[in-house]
């Protein structure tokens, strides 16, 4: 037994040393280059489809091998951060949410691709898409998936309440909601995703811009705690107090909004595009065929100030990582991925980023691509131009967290809306100073 012990310990020591020393990093092989791309599960196309695109690319470019990795959205940011700590980086390209470029550019993660973007791309792709990846005139990625928040409502229930038209202003929505509630059609006619995550800032953005407000003023100082911003937050709380907004909104995410809406518990639901196709899926929805789009309402004050529409940009793009050893090959793949041909091919799953696809004969083809497109394409064309951006500051995550907390504190009555927003604004000033 004693010898057994000695052997075990020696073996293990050896094993560890072997692991430590034996596996030296390989040198890049002379043959085909392998690039690693990190993307989201459920970001427009299914993994199987993206894999297919990768294979098609490989057959046209035999010297490049593409390895895709799929991950849930919540974890992409952290994977990028850790991945970039390694040399060479774990990923050559990654999908970027619209709120990350500033942080990543400051951290030196993103490659400046301004010179690689052709005029054709610049002009052919929706200008609003470039917003997500352009900073100070420099471009840092390739647009991929456009998304905004839409205003959806249950037309059957609305009609039942006696309204033939959806509301154009939030004030009108409150009137309609009150009537719906009184008639007992829905206990909480509206539902939102106001839990302590990024989603609440998205909703707040939709409302804030619709009131003529903004996050920061021309000097970059916080402006969301002015009267317009406070009005919005007060309005939000009021709808909960009046029983028009589901009180669980404070702990709800976008999924919960969909759950309520598709179970017929709410009549109005602000959400991303996915909610529409889910609404027509009988394995998820009890209100198949009852959902319609309407332009996102604005506040009366906003309409008076000339605001015609309001929403928030939730798009994603692909960026080349700055320290990749293969920038050319990676860029080649990204442009292929977002190329017109590929985008049109999969237009049933995901709206293309090329404006030409929305014109003339192409538009008809696009609408016919799948059963929901006849509805979603016009809705997209209507709403996307009003996609507002959230603040483009490198400390956005921490700033957003402060704002999330402020909104939550106001909604739960811990602070008054003015106080909460003032505290958050102070935090933003502090962060800007560092």
């Amino acid at each position, binding site marked *: 037994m004693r010898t057994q*012990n*000695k052997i*075990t*310990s020696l073996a*293990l*020591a050896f094993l*560890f040393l072997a692991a*430590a020393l034996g596996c030296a990093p390989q040198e890049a092989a002379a043959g085909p280059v392998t690039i690693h791309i990190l993307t989201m599960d459920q970001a427009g196309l299914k993994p199987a489809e993206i894999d297919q695109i990768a294979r098609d690319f490989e057959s046209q470019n035999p010297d490049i091998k593409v390895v895709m990795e799929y991950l849930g959205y919540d974890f992409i*940011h*952290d994977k990028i*951060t850790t991945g*970039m700590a390694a040399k060479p980086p774990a990923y050559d390209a990654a999908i970027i949410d619209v709120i990350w470029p500033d*942080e990543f550019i*400051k*951290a*030196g*993660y993103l490659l400046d691709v301004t010179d690689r973007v052709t005029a054709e791309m610049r002009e052919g792709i929706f200008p609003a898409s470039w917003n997500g990846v352009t900073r100070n005139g420099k471009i840092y990625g390739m647009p991929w998936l456009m998304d905004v928040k839409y205003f959806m409502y249950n037309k059957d229930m609305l009609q039942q309440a006696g309204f033939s038209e959806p509301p154009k202003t939030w004030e009108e929505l409150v009137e309609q909601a009150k009537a719906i509630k009184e008639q007992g059609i829905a206990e909480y006619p509206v539902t939102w995703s106001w*839990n*302590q*995550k990024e989603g609440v800032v998205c909703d707040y953005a939709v409302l804030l811009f619709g009131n003529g407000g903004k996050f920061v003023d021309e000097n970059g100082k916080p402006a969301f705690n002015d009267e317009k911003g406070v009005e919005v937050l007060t309005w939000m709380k009021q709808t909960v107090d009046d029983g028009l907004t*589901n*009180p*669980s*909104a*404070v*702990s*709800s*995410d976008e999924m*919960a909004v969909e*759950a*309520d809406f598709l*179970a017929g*518990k709410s009549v109005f639901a602000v959400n991303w595009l996915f909610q529409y196709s889910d609404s027509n899926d009988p394995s998820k929805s009890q209100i198949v065929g009852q959902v319609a789009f309407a332009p996102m309402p604005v506040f009366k004050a906003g309409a008076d100030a000339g605001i015609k529409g309001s929403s928030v940009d939730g798009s994603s793009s692909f960026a080349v990582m*700055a*320290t990749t050893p293969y920038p050319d090959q990676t860029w080649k793949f990204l442009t292929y991925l977002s190329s017109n041909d590929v985008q049109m091919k999969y237009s049933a799953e995901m709206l293309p980023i090329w404006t030409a696809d929305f014109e003339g004969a192409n538009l008809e083809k696009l609408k016919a691509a799948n059963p929901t497109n006849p509805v979603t394409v016009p809705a997209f064309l209507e709403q996307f131009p009003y996609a507002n951006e959230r603040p483009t500051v490198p*400390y956005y*995550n*921490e700033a957003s*967290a402060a704002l999330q*907390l402020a909104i*939550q*504190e106001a*909604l*739960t009555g*811990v602070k008054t809306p003015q106080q909460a927003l003032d505290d958050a604004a102070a935090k933003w000033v502090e962060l800007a100073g560092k």
Partner: protein
Amino acid sequence: MGSLLLASPPHLLSMTVTSESPLQRKLSLREKDARVAWLLVAPSLLVILGVTLWPILYTFILSFFVAPTGINQARTFVGFGNYLEMLADPAFWETIQRTVYFTVASVSLELILGLAVAQLIHSRPWGWKFLRFSLIIPWAVPTIVNGAMWRWIYSADFGALNAILFQLGLIKHYVPWLALSSSAMNLVILADIWHTMPFVALILQAALANLPEELNEAAAVDGANAFQRFWHIRLPLLRPAILVALIVRTVEAFRVFDIVYIITSGGPASKTMTISYLTYLYSFSYGKQGTGAALSFLISIFTIAMAILYIRFLYRPEETQS
């Protein structure tokens, strides 16, 4: 754990030193013992230190810098700046308070329930085998699934909790539990207890199984009732096992992260934000690795302090020898 802090009594050695005890014999016995000890401990040490030594040192040094995440980011030495910044931040103390509440509530309830269940199993009721087997199930369900499941059970509109309470007539109206500051934390605690109580129960049950029964029987013969026997005989003998369970669970509970992330994401209004979550936010979300590192060490100070407190109050060397 406390039993660890005093190495075995020299008792064993003195026993072997009989009448003819030349100093050399004592020494070489000790030496031989020590060599065996090193042989036994070395592989574990190698693994643990090999993996964690550099990361811990790295993190420790990092805590004295302002270290934004990124490539070739300048790191500014700030001495204790990060620590002081955190200690001066009221949000930090609120978070500690919440985490302490979570830890105390969670661990004490787990301990009480775990002890009760362990004793129950030990008393061999009908179906005790099934009971002990069932204990594994909550523990075996992965933490993420546990979180997602309870989140759904607590759902305001579709959850089982509301449904049951409503049907039992205990509430007139569905309650948005997770949106209320008053209930959110307690419900997270409940979810955690469900998941980890089995661990405590099983450890204590194994310890109970190890206890010599004669003391108990002798006391019964002397006329002590069940409760007295439990309190004065069994419980003290269980001290080492309880201490282990307490320390392990306290350290884990203080660092809880997964379950909070899934059920409430720290809300509402940060009322369920725990210190590990905050550390995660600083290190990853806000890109402030220096602050994150400082927070980690502050957490360690708290957990070490708790471990020491436990040992102070609960370690009784006499009782480990029968």
